[in-house]
């Protein structure tokens, strides 16, 4: 779940001197391996096409029982209301309140995840274990392996599932949203932080250790300062994600924009829905802008002697100030955690949940639903990938020589329009998209896939546009200098350079999408998520655990496939 921005290492400049030594290795690899790899890559492409077609069939596309034509007027009404959102003072006040609540959940959830991430990140880093157990390699590997494994489960369970769990033991309390965001985000953050720490040059740290300083102090002085900028930029990225999660968690009833949206949806009050959606789009847009402003400052080359940017410092201060304000806005009450009732319910629930229990349909039902969930994720990512490829280039600010002022203005307009579209697509959370699609489609895989696909298209389109903007411009210049037309430069220069990155982003989002099938399941779109929601609602905890285990297996399968495809990308 690392954001690709973290794994991208910028432009690769060929350095002949450094390339010479590994030349022999490359030659030794020979042509046989080369053809083998290209064959593997081709097989992946075939598999992707076949998988998508199979998923289309599984989703029942082309069959009678998919489209509910009766719902079409509702969709018309819905979009007609976009121009007439409810704007009276009462409702605006309610919207503002809900927006602040969602923001508050996001801030507090991120804060919790950062605390967990820092502690977990140190404990899950090889660096820490290496210096802790200098000579006993076995203990080191076991300790490191165990912490890493311990992070897998909280990371693999989606915020919404955590939310449903805490709801049943704590009840409707603000702390539910904070924990539901903080725990899974904390586990992801811990993994990313540990990787950042391990990638940071180790010499200053080992030098301090050699000089006799304690491990904590050595880390604080030798390891954290160089790692901090990366960790900071990742934290802001997490905050951006937390806002979307907070909105979705609202749908479970803990309040905020998601909660108000679900109420307005139930009453089919489209004008209210649009007011709330506009608020959500604004909030997400603002968070995107803030986060990318901070991260852009981070990425910019630092001149020696220059001080930390004012944007970064101001953002840090603002983030710290937001903490108590958020706690006050959402009326955070920590005491519920210590209550006897909470403890009893937790114990009882844990007792009920073991041994796991199959649903009424047995393994057949579970595996069928798993296959459907997989198909949902495949369709969603196929739609998102194709759409994002189409929209990424018009959305990218790519330097291009010349052009008349009118042409430049037209290009700017196109960039703004595509970026706006992508923002809207990703600001509306998948469950809301799913509710919309359920107007015209019968519950099942298809509405879920469309909802996830449209949302992921918004996310992926932005990632791809940014990556297209960062392409090395020099080969493109060289093509232009010998008289190639714009479209030819695009085909020979832009597409081949962008393809591996685009595919990598698509795979990364596929891993996210399979986890998010839960989110659309909760509103009734189908798959394992729907079953899980029903099981939790009927207190069938044993069944829920079985479903969850199958779901974890499914995410693992997707992760492994994605990793295998990514490996074949590296030539």
């Amino acid at each position: 779940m690392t954001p690709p921005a973290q794994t991208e290492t910028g432009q690769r400049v060929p350095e002949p001197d450094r390339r010479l030594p590994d030349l022999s290795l490359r030659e030794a690899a020979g042509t046989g391996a080369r053809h083998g790899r290209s064959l593997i890559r081709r097989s992946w492409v075939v598999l992707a096409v076949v998988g998508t077609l199979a998923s289309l069939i599984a989703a029942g596309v082309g069959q009678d029982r998919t489209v509910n034509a009766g719902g079409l007027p509702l969709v018309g009404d819905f979009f007609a209301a976009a121009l007439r959102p409810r704007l009276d003072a009462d409702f605006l006040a309610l919207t503002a309140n809900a927006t602040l609540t969602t923001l508050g959940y996001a801030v507090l959830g991120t804060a919790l995840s950062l605390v967990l991430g820092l502690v977990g990140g140190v404990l899950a880093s090889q660096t820490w274990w290496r210096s802790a157990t200098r000579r006993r390699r076995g203990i080191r590997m076991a300790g490191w392996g165990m912490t890493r494994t311990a992070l897998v489960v909280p990371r693999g369970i989606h915020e919404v599932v955590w939310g449903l769990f805490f709801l049943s033991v704590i009840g409707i309390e603000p702390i539910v949203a904070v924990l539901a965001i903080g725990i899974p985000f904390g586990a992801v953050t811990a993994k990313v932080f540990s990787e950042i720490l391990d990638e940071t040059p180790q010499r200053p740290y080992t030098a301090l250790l050699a000089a006799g300083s304690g491990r904590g102090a050595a880390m604080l002085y030798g390891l954290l300062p160089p790692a901090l900028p990366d960790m900071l930029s990742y934290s802001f990225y997490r905050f951006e994600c937390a806002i979307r999660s907070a909105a979705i968690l609202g749908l479970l009833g803990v309040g905020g924009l998601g909660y108000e949206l679900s109420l307005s949806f139930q009453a089919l009050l489209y004008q209210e829905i649009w007011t709330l959606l506009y608020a959500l789009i604004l909030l997400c847009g603002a968070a995107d802008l803030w986060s990318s402003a901070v991260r852009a400052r981070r990425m910019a080359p630092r001149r020696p002697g220059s001080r930390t940017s004012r944007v970064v410092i101001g953002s840090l201060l603002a983030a710290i100030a937001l903490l108590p304000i958020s706690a006050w806005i959402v009326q955070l009450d920590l005491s519920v955690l210590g209550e006897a009732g909470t403890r009893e319910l937790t114990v009882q629930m844990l007792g009920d949940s073991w041994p796991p229990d199959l649903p009424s349909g047995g393994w057949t039902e579970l595996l069928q639903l798993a296959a459907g969930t997989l198909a949902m994720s495949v369709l969603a990512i196929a739609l998102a990938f194709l759409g994002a490829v189409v929209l990424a280039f018009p959305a990218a600010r790519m330097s291009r020589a010349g052009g008349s002022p009118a042409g430049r203005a037209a290009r700017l307009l196109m960039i703004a329009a595509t970026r706006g579209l992508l923002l809207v697509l990703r600001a509306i959370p998948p469950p809301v998209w799913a509710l919309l699609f359920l107007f015209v489609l019968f519950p099942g895989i298809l509405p879920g896939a469309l909802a996830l696909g449209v949302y992921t298209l918004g996310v992926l389109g932005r990632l791809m546009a940014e990556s297209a903007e960062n392409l090395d411009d020099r080969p493109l210049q060289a093509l232009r200098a010998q008289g190639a037309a714009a479209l030819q430069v695009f085909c020979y220069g832009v597409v081949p350079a962008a393809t591996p990155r685009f595919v990598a982003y698509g795979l990364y989002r596929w891993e996210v999408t399979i986890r998010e099938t839960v989110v659309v399941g909760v509103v009734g779109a189908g798959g394992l998520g729907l079953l899980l929601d029903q099981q939790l609602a009927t207190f069938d905890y044993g069944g829920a655990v079985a479903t969850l285990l199958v779901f974890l297996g499914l995410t693992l399968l997707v992760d492994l496939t994605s990793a295998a495809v990514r490996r074949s990308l590296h030539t």
Partner: protein
Amino acid sequence: MPEPALFQLQGAGVRFGSIRALTELDLDVGWGERVAVIGPSGAGKSSLIALLNGTLAPTDGQVRVLGRDIAAASGRERRGVQRRLGTIHQQFHLVEQLRAVHNVNAGHLGSWSTARAVLSLLAPRDVGRARQALERVGIGDKLYEHTGNLSGGEQQRVAIARVLVQRPAAVLADEPIASLDPARGREIMDLLHEISRETGTTLLASLHDVDIALERFERVVGLREGRIAFDAAPAALDPAEIEALYALERGAP
């Protein structure tokens, strides 16, 4: 009517904001000439090449290539001129993700239709000429290799093969050997010369290495602080003149 000079610079200058990269250059380069441009880093060698191949528009004066004022030309006209100029860069500027054959075939882009160019990416066209060109530069066996997997010297050879396929009237080389080791650099330089001699192509190369410039070229242009310091045959050059070119400051001993 006598043919116009290939490159004609009249009082040409380039400014980036307040910084003058090139100032009042007057330079004529004829058909088939082999010219070396030398000068310290920052003297404006790369800007001069970019000015000649139409990547950079002059802010002052005029640049005529093949008799045409390319700053004033329409996009189509400019591309028509550019198609007849091949450029080789220090950092090769190839698309590393493509196979060598496509990078070589990119030399056709100025003359191919877009449809043909796209189809060729799916199934390479004109493989025969691409293979010939790669064989000419000594790496015929790398036709289907991914360009990023080739060594620096091999990548520069792919870039030269691209120019061969393009069959330009002039080859512009911007520090073509600065990223290579001396032996590899000498081979590349030999290759550029042979090609220029065989086909009668004009060669204009900016170079770090003064010895190679004096040894191999009939005409050497010295650039300093964006101005032409001298423009003469190697035999007519005074060693002191060359030393002055690289002296730290104007007028310093």
